[in-house]
């Protein structure tokens, strides 16, 4: 492999050969793995800096204003300015807070999001580690994030933080159910849980084979991150600042960075599972192109998240949970059953695409009918007020 086609593979081989000259093999593997880890983790963190600027600019444009444009050209250095500000703020730990848990919670929050990047396939052959259970691994590290919220809320020794943490965890675990079920649809279509295999088997992007599942996955991922319309977790007018009320300075900065990185990460995961990942013209030849394609598709997913954020108002918690348990979960289960049966019968034939599309449309239609019936039932049981005597002029 030449340097142009596969830079990382070339470098890895060169470093391995170089180090094998004077180190035992176990150490060589360890050092190469360590370098891979540092590159992957740094990639995630450096992207956050760019993302925060991008988010502020795009949110501003949606609101018909300019966004940051003072610090550096086009406001590009704004994130650095924010970071410096957060680092130099005093780190106030409340007296009665539980010190160890209080300090671990923001670190756990960032770790939970960074761990997802270990299984993201950037290009053919460039993946942190091709676990054979990659998809389930992503769901599992999400649960560390949930735990960090509980730890943050409880250790603050603050009623509002605790209440906010409970509501946040209720929302997150509720929306994990449709997320897991719709995560199963690409696994079903690719017959494997490994992320690289899912991308490699997408000759036809899975969003064409399972569009409604993709939409449900996007919706439940937005709820998992805690973005509007599901941002009750940090709604300032409702619960002060929710579970991170008592956090100041860089610890709050860690929660902040974790949320932005999480939003971009779900854009990238959506791109991998449904939009074909690194697939595109020339990606197998020139690996860097694969990374470019993946980042473009990930940014598209991130743009959709920001678009939804700028458009929709915040949803009340009982509406949000009812929407999840009474609409999204049954709908995603029906889609899974339909996809499973149709894919088994017609999976190898040319009828796969039109039949699966038709099945999705059918399930969507049935879902719309069910919603219409439910709203009509509600209207019918509205109380009819008795006519009360009204004063009439004599």
């Amino acid at each position, binding site marked *: 492999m030449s340097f142009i086609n596969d830079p990382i593979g070339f470098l890895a081989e060169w470093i391995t050969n170089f180090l094998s000259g004077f180190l035992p093999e176990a150490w060589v593997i360890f050092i190469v793995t360590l370098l891979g880890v540092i590159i992957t983790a740094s990639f995630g963190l450096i992207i956050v800096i760019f993302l925060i600027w991008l988010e502020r600019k795009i949110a501003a444009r949606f609101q018909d204003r300019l966004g940051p444009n003072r610090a550096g050209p086009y406001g590009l250095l704004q994130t650095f300015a924010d970071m410096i500000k957060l680092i130099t703020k005093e780190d106030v730990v409340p007296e009665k807070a539980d010190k160890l*848990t209080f300090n671990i919670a923001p670190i756990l929050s960032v770790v939970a999001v960074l761990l997802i990047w270990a299984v993201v396939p950037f290009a053919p052959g460039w993946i942190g580690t091709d676990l054979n259970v990659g998809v389930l*691994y992503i*769901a*599992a590290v999400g*649960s560390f994030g949930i*735990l960090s919220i509980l*730890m943050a809320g409880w250790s603050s020794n603050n009623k509002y933080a*605790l209440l906010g943490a*409970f509501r946040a965890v209720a929302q997150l675990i509720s929306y994990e159910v449709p997320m897991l079920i719709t995560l199963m649809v690409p696994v079903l279509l690719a017959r494997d849980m490994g992320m690289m295999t899912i991308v490699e088997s997408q000759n036809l992007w899975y969003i064409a084979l399972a569009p409604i599942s993709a939409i449900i996955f996007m919706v439940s991922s937005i709820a998992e991150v805690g973005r509007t319309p599901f941002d009750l977790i940090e709604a300032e007018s409702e619960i002060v600042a929710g579970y991170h009320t008592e956090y100041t300075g860089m610890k709050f900065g860690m929660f902040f960075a974790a949320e932005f990185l999480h939003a971009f990460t779900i854009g990238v995961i959506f791109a991998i599972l449904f939009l074909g990942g690194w697939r595109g013209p020339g990606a197998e030849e020139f690996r860097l192109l694969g990374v470019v394609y993946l980042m473009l598709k990930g940014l598209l997913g991130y743009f959709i998240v920001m678009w939804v954020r700028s458009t929709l108002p915040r949803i009340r918690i009982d509406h949000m949970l009812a929407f999840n348990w009474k609409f999204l979960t049954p709908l995603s289960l029906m889609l899974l059953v339909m996809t499973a049966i149709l894919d088994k019968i017609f999976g190898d034939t040319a009828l796969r695409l039109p039949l699966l599309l038709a099945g999705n449309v059918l399930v969507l239609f049935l879902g719309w009918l069910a919603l219409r019936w439910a709203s009509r039932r509600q209207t019918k049981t509205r109380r009819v007020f008795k006519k009360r005597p009204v004063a009439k002029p004599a």
Partner: protein
Amino acid sequence: MTVEQAVFLFTSFLILFSGFMMVTRQNLVHAALYLVVALFGVAVIFVLLEAGFLAVVQVLVYIGAIAILMIFAVMLTRGDVSQEQEPVNANFGWALLLAALFCFGLIVLIGQWPAIDSQAPALDPEADTVLDLGAALVSPDAYVIPFEVASVLLLAALIGALVVARPQKKNPRSAK
């Protein structure tokens, strides 16, 4: 000492330590968090046994659902967490003796198991264990009956737990 052995020793100490801390903490939320550490250690043991699927299932189900359920229960029912309770009572000595006897008996019993020194047959490195698991779960001459019974069991657990925990509708007219 290979890397695997070192990781195994470290993880075992971690599990034992957090298990011990969990049962001796007075603050119940701390105990629940030590439980999370112990469960994570078990997941690492699964990885060492080349059962990656079970490791992520352990994290996803135990830490992501069961530990959170327990923490909810502790935080919601405890009220004032600063109510410290004595971790030991008058019967501590007898309990310790009984536990030591039980542990010793278990070690002797398992040591007499004939297969304890033999190694398990090596797994074919090309075998896709998750695929085999999936095929075994629904094939009629393997585990399809337990698979379906598991779903009925989950249904029964759901219904039972809801019956016990369901919010009682406060009916003001029932006072008559």
